[in-house]
Structures are given as C-alpha cells and as structure tokens.
C-alpha cells in the first residue's frame, strides 16, 4: 500500500516535470516560428512597397527614355544599356579567370603546398573585403594607373575583381564533385591532363560552375558602391557605344533618384528597382534551373 502511493507520487511528479518541459518546448517552438516568419513578412512588405510605388510608372517610355530633370519624362535607357555593357564585360573577364584559378587550385597545384594554402586563405579573405574597398582599388589601379579613365572598362574590371573569389570557390566545389573514376578512366586511355580537364572535368562540372557564376554576376549587377568610387556618373544622357565611354548603371540611377527630395522621383526609383529585380530574378531562375538539372543528372 505504502509502496503504491510512493510510485503514484513519483509518477505525478514526473508528469508535472514533463508537462512544464513540454510547455517550454511549445513556447519556444512558437517563438521560433515567429522569428522565421519575420523574414517572409519583411520580403512581402518590401515587394509590396516597391510595386505599390513604382508599378504605375513602369512603361515602354520609361524603358526607352533618357534620364531627365522632369520625373514624368525620365527613363532608364542609358542606365540599362550601361548595366548590360558592364555586366557583359565583367562576365567575359571573370569567368575564364575564376574557372582557370579553380582548375589550377584543384588539378595542378598540390593541395598541401604552401602556395596552395596561401591562395586559399587569400581568396577567403578577399571574399570578406567590403565592396567599396574594391571601388577604391579600381579608382587607384584602373582609372588612374592604367589610365582607363572613368569608363565602362574600369567599372567592369573592378567588378571582376569583386566577384572573382565567389566564382573561384563555386568552381572549385563543382570541380571537386567530379568523380575520380571518370578522371582515372580518361588518364587510362592515354589522354593528357589538359585534354582530360577540357574533355571530362569541365563538361561534368559546367552546370555547377555556371550556377555559381550566374549568382556572382547577379550580385555584380546590383552593386552601386564600387562603381560610384570608380566614377560612374549619376546622370548620363547618351548611349554608351564602347568600353571606353563613361557610363551609369541601374543601381546608381536608382540611387540618384532615391536621393532627390521630390516624391515623384521616389516613384520612378521604385520603377527602376522593379526593372533591376526583374533582371536579377531572370538570372537567378536560370541558375536554379541549371542547378536542378545538374542534381537530377548525378542522382
């Protein structure tokens, strides 16, 4: 009888304890959901704010007009063309450089050598340098030292250095994922190293490399600070026709409009943001499609 009560008391006590612990868990769970939903709410608010201010102002004229002092006449043609110029050149420079470095690090240099380690540490550190510092580098090296002036070329070279670490790391990951059996098979056929790389390694790693490159380039597309440092102008009323022309890009044009006090300029700034985000979304969607295709193949 006595023993029975004791066990009963024990069960009751334990029950109480587990109830409070379960409650704690539930409260915490709710709290976590709240914290996580914040991100979704913020994204929704941000998109709503941009579309509600800018959507009405989006038109064919807006895409096809030059910037202007009058908000209703202003357009983003020169900024859009400037962005396309800068980004195309950036892609052209950064892709071979990034992939080449990744190939060197993964397939040529001995991963235990001091040079390889130095390169890896260096690349990791470069990825953490604020983008505006790259702008100062571009100003000192490309604009002044190489005398490229405040041109599209200077801007593209600056952005190339900015996104190079990202591309290198992505390409390294992709190259690492190539099964060794394929490479050994190629060597067994008497194929040289470089032929193995171009014939076996790169085709296999290409979707991964492209995904990383596209994401890096879409980051470059949204950058304003480094290009302001190298002297991209806020107001360009002509079409750039070559890499040595002065230029502006979408983010700088948006910045320019945002910093004006008149409310109407805020509206066209929002319209400009919609155009920029549409471009980024297209790039990211391409990257995701590539990634999915790639994942399916390895499965």
């Amino acid at each position, binding site marked *: 009888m006595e023993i029975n009560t004791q066990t009963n008391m024990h069960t009751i006590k334990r029950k109480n304890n587990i109830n409070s*612990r379960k409650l*704690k868990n539930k409260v*915490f*769970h709710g709290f*976590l*959901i709240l*914290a*996580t939903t*914040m*991100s*979704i709410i*913020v*994204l929704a*608010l*941000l998109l709503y*704010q941009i579309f509600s*201010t800018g959507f009405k102002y989006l038109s064919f004229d807006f895409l096809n007009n030059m910037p202007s002092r009058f908000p209703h006449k202003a357009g983003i043609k020169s900024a859009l063309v400037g962005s396309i110029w800068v980004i195309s050149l950036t892609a052209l420079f950064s892709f071979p*450089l990034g992939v*080449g*470095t990744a190939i*060197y690090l993964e397939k040529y*240099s001995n991963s235990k050598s001091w040079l390889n380690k130095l*390169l890896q540490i*260096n*690349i990791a*550190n*470069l990825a*953490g*340098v*604020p*983008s*505006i*510092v*790259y*702008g*100062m*580098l571009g100003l*000192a090296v490309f604009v*002044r030292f190489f005398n490229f002036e405040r041109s599209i070329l200077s801007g593209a070279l600056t952005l190339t250095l900015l996104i*190079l*670490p990202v591309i*290198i790391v992505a390409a390294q990951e992709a190259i690492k994922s190539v099964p060794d059996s394929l490479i050994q098979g190629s060597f067994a056929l008497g194929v*040289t190293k*470089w032929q193995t790389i171009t014939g076996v390694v790169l085709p296999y790693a290409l979707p991964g490399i492209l995904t990383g490159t596209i994401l890096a380039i879409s*980051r470059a*597309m*949204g950058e*304003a*600070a480094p290009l302001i*440092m190298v*002297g991209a102008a806020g107001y360009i009323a002509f079409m750039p026709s070559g890499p040595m022309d002065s230029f502006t890009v979408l983010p700088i044009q*948006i*910045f320019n409009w*945002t*910093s004006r006090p008149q409310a109407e300029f*805020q509206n066209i700034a*929002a319209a400009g*943001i919609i155009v920029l985000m549409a471009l*980024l979304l297209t790039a*990211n969607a391409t990257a995701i499609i590539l990634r999915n295709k790639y994942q399916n193949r390895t499965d």
Partner: protein
Amino acid sequence: MKSQGKAKRKVHLGEFFIEKALQLFAAISILTTIAIIFTLFQETFIFFQEVSIIEFFTSKMWTPTLHPRNFGILPLLVGTMMIALGSSIIALPLGLFTAIYLSEYAHKKVRSVVKPVLEILAGIPSIVYGFFALTFITPILQKILPQTQVFNAASASIAVGIMITPMVASLSEDAMMAVPDSIRQGAYALGSTKFEVAMKVIVPACLSSIASAFVLAISRAVGETMIVAIAAGASPTLTFNPLKSIQTMTGFMVNISLGDIQHGTIEYKTVFAVGALLFVITFMMNIVAKLIVNKYREEY
C-alpha cells in the same frame, strides 16, 4: 617515329604553357590583395604627412571639405558602430532562431518555402534595402517617435539588419546541420524535448561556428554602403542618438566620390585614409571569425 616524337613534345609544351597560364590566373588573386594594401596605404601614408595621426583618432570634428578643415574620424567611427550594433540587435537573434527552427524543428515542406525566401532576401541589392529604409521604415519610425529625423541611424540599422539576417541564418544552419545525427538521437533517447536538444546540445556543439557567423555578419554591416548612404544621412556629428542623422565611414566615402574628386587633393587622400581604416577593421574581424572556428571547433 620522329614526327611522332615531335607531336609528343608539342603536346608536352602545350601542357606546360597551359599550366603556367593557369598559374598566372591564380596569381591575380594574390596581386589583388597586394594592390589593395599597397594603394590604400600609400595614399594613407601621404595623408598622415599632412594630418596628424593623433588628430585623426582623437578629434571629435569631421569637416574635411569645409574650412577650417578638421579630420577627427570619431564621428564616422561612432556612426559606423551604431549601424553595426543596431543591425546586430536585429540580425543576430533573428538569424540564429531562424537557423534553429530550420535545422531542428521545421518540416521539410516548410524548409522548402523558407530557404528560398532567405536566398531571395540575401540576393536583393543593398540599394533596394536603402530605398525600403527611406520610404517605408523611416515613415513608420516617424509615426511612432515623432522626433525622428528624415535621415537617421535607426532606420538604416533595421534595413542592414534585415539584409544580414539570411547570412547569419544560413551560416548557423550549416553548422547545426553538420552536427552528427547520432548526437541528436542520443539526446532524444535520454528523453529530452526538442527545446532541450536544440538549446543544450546542438547550439553548444556549434557555438564556435555561430560566434564566427556573428562576427562575419557584423563585419558585413560595417562595410555596408548603399543603405547607409541613402537612409542614415550625411551629417558627421558625434551623437549616440539613433533617431538623428549621422554619417558612417562608407557613407562619407560615397558622398565625397559623387562629386568629382581630383587626384592629389586632400579629399582624395581622405577617402583613402578612411578606406584603409575600414579595410583594417573588416579584415581583423574576418581573421577573428576564422580564429574562433579554428580554435574552438568541436570535432566529431
């Protein structure tokens, strides 16, 4: 036979040159670092021949473009720290809790919604957050606290915080996912609730990675430019009031570069001196982040 040997040698020569070319590509990343350090510190050195280093770090006035010129970096430094602190208050807990949720609680389906949302947030250009801060966050702040100025540190801090939250979340989540499942299962087998597993087992296990993620995120906030250039203002006054207009180091650099600065002028050198300080601060934070991980990592 002979021609075959020639072809072989040709192939070998090609292979040799390709390796050298790739080596050259790799050298560019080293050259970039050298060039950054060299250009920043060369101009900074010249700057400090004209401005005393003591004035730079102790004076409370920053008026490099107006006469009389004053070169006290403190207002910019305090402004930058305010943004870093304010954004941390938002991003560190939000990011960490999101990471715990995604790694320990969330159903697969929820993850497949939340992860892309975070990726989108991480991919939005900072100029867009700047616009959001100025046209959305600031008006709300002004409604709650009417003394809020149009440009203020609080609004920019919130926007920077939103921007770096995905970074904290994804770095912390990666660390939590890397904790072996056996440890988790062991804790569950002892009768732990999810809360106990998360807070007493998983988080302590990857504390070093979380700390390093925090440091990296703060370093990112310190170097963030466009949000503060748009929303935080351009008045380098020494204040600790987040509702007032301030200026950060990055904000100053952008602001002065919008005008046409000529090489050799004191303005040009000032930008490089501020840039060098910014580089040193973020570089040290990145090193600290790496040291934390290397030193305190738990190996499984």
